[in-house]
């Protein structure tokens, strides 16, 4: 009986109903399980907004204060939930304002669907008011894009958009819909996309490559794993941990791999790359087998490629065939979703430990600790340091918070010092390095995971790139915690000027406004800390606040981030000072 009823209901639901293109857009979003979207209205997208008004109890549309904010919020949402982030904008300037976020999502493989309004199809190509060729503009930075000019295309195209955005190596998709297609009607039925014949998101796994990989790993004397965001995107965190533990391999992460494995796991040896940890960078050039898992050998990870892991046999676990041998030649390339390949690998691995080799990482950590970490965390005099602030947040969060960082010195410090117990907890702009990312991304992250504490760590420079999103926080009452580490400088650029341009501080000093007053202007609780003695209480007050909270911390102005691999240098020439 019950089954029958369900069937009946399903049938009724599937019978075509005549709706406008604009309503079809909303129905597609509902079919895809979307309940939160970010956007900004305008002429060419007004029909869709009119439908959003009608459907407001089903879809929460968050009005950001700038379309760039909408993209980063959608990214933050996607990064913490694994779902597709959705944003929506009008034609012309609305659409072009999305571009930075789209490029960011493309390079960091974030699933996102952007819907833009476009002038009526009869006006296309006439330089009509607010016409821009957003499909042309966004082509190099989207996984796929398409312009809809007929209402009846909408269901199939949006189904495809969501499928492409989330499958394989995820990425951003832009769908541009002309205004007449939004007004015209169609018979609506929806079928989720299950495949596209020219698109192979999941390469076939080749078992013999897995066996070869296992053989190399089993016979390795000094193996090292470097894992990236692929592990998170593939939902393979638990598998990674099993591999690491079974084979006893010291494991390091790229900035986007951070939080895929608990930071205090005994075999977690820290971050690789320009401002990563000393041990994993130096020992990259000492290991005999380098196992890269879901990472793409970005130049900020490898330093000079001529001197990168030349002694090692490289095994590359990767979903995207275009990444194989792109930067580093792989001895064994294991194509496929890491969730599948690591599972298979596990069966072939021999239980091992590599204590003596692991000890080398610990020895180098000791050097880094004595030279850098200890000074940054303890016994400092004078102005507060960035690391102390992150450490205080760790103490308060126990490693359970989602940390959203912006771009600059504070980002490197946040990623070096933040503690994580849970995956999908580190949200940062890795590949594009987009200043202004964190504040809106934190909004999306908190909406995606309302039960988690979300803390944004932002520099005084980047904060002012999307500071207008305080308006979104105020209006939606989303309880994000905002920490601005104010050093009065575009610190990361200033560090380079100090080290490589004889301290010529060209346009890096910031004369800043009263940040607390600005936050208060948006009716957000706010406080400023200048003394070490105030820090602990201030962080506690912020973390305990049930509402949004802004905390400005005045930090040492000319502190530098170390270790550092100067551009063009080898990973093993990483500098401690």
């Amino acid at each position, binding site marked *: 009986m019950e089954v029958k009823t369900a069937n009946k209901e399903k049938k009724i639901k599937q019978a075509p109903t005549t709706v406008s293109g604009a309503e079809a857009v909303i129905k597609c979003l509902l079919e895809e399980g979307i309940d939160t979207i970010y956007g900004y209205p305008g002429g060419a997208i007004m029909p869709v907004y009119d439908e959003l008004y009608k459907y407001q109890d089903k879809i929460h549309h968050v009005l950001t204060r700038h379309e760039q904010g909408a993209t980063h919020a959608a990214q933050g949402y996607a990064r913490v939930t694994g779902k597709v982030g959705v944003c929506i904008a009008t034609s012309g300037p609305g659409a072009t304002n999305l571009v930075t976020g789209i490029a960011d999502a493309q390079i960091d493989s974030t699933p996102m669907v952007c819907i833009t309004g476009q002038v009526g199809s009869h006006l296309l190509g006439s330089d009509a008011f607010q016409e821009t060729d957003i499909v*042309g503009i966004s*082509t*190099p930075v989207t996984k796929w894009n398409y*312009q809809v000019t007929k209402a009846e295309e909408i269901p199939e195209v949006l189904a495809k958009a969501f499928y492409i955005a989330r499958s394989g190596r995820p990425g951003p998709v832009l769908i541009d819909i002309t205004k007449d297609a939004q007004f015209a009607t169609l018979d609506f039925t929806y079928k989720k996309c*299950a495949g596209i*014949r020219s*698109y192979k998101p999941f390469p076939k796994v080749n078992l013999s490559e897995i066996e070869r990989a296992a053989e190399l790993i089993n016979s390795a004397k000094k193996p090292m794993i470097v894992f990236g965001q692929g592990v998170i995107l593939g939902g393979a965190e638990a598998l990674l941990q099993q591999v690491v533990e079974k084979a006893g391999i010291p494991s390091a992460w790229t900035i986007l791999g951070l939080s895929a494995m608990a930071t205090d796991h005994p075999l977690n040896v820290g971050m690789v790359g320009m401002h990563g940890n000393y041990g994993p960078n130096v020992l990259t050039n000492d290991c005999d087998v380098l196992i890269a898992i879901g990472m793409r050998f970005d130049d900020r990870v490898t330093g000079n490629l001529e001197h990168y892991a030349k002694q090692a046999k490289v095994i590359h676990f990767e979903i995207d065939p275009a*990444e194989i041998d*792109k930067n580093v030649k792989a001895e064994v390339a294991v194509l496929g979703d890491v969730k599948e390949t690591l599972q298979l690998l596990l069966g072939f691995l021999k239980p091992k430990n590599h204590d003596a080799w692991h000890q080398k990482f610990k020895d180098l950590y000791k050097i880094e600790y004595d030279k850098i970490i200890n000074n940054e965390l303890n016994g400092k005099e004078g102005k507060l340091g960035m690391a102390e602030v992150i450490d205080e947040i760790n103490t308060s969060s126990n490693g359970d918070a989602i940390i959203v960082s912006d771009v600059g010195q504070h980002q490197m410090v946040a990623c070096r010092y933040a503690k994580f117990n849970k995956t999908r907890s580190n949200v940062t702009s890795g590949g594009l390095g987009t200043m202004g990312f964190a504040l809106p991304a934190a909004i999306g992250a908190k909406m995606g995971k309302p039960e988690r504490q979300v803390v944004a760590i932002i520099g005084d420079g980047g904060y002012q790139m999307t500071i207008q999103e305080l308006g979104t926080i105020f209006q939606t009452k989303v309880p994000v915690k905002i920490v601005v580490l104010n050093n009065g400088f575009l610190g990361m650029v200033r560090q380079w000027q100090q080290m490589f341009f004889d301290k010529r501080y060209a346009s890096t000093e910031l004369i800043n406004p009263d940040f607390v007053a600005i936050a208060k202007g948006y009716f957000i609780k706010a406080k400023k800390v200048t003394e070490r003695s105030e820090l602990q209480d201030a962080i506690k007050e912020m973390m305990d606040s049930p509402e949004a909270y802004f905390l400005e911390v005045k930090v040492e102005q000319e502190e530098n981030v170390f270790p550092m691999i100067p551009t063009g240098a080898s990973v093993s020439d990483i500098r401690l000072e």
Partner: protein
Amino acid sequence: MEKKNYTISIYTENNIGLLSRIAAIFLKRHFNIESITVSKSEVKEVMRFIIVVEITEEQVKKIIGQIEKQIEVIRAYYHTDEELIFQETALYKVNSAEFVEDLTIQDFIKETNARIVTVTPKFFVIEKTGKRHEIDNLYDKLKPYGLMQFVRSGKIAVSKNEMPISSILEDFNTININS
């Protein structure tokens, strides 16, 4: 690594935006496209791009990876000249006055298998299909006669080896019907 002429064959769905998407991949890496043609292929509703570039093998492999990554690309292949049968076509418009007088050039045209397409009192149009150097040779020959216009097609080519597009598409259909 040595630079060479590589002919890239790309089988794609017929999609408006794809040409600029593919062109952008070359642009981004500063690879100069020597020639490009787009046409229907042997498979229904499937287009074929033929792009000629002079780059290294390592570069062409990476480019193929980037091209195949595009959603509407079914498959991309690359070949060296030895692995292909290929032709180009050129049209030469020459001044009738000079041309009519000269028998040696008319003989040359016959010998090289070029063809006179149109004759008017003012100009001749000659067509030549062949390898690039043959087309260039004829160009050099005709230049002194007052070449009024010259145009050369992109390279068209078929590979000696198979490019099994139909079976790739069939595989997709079977998988999707079964699942």
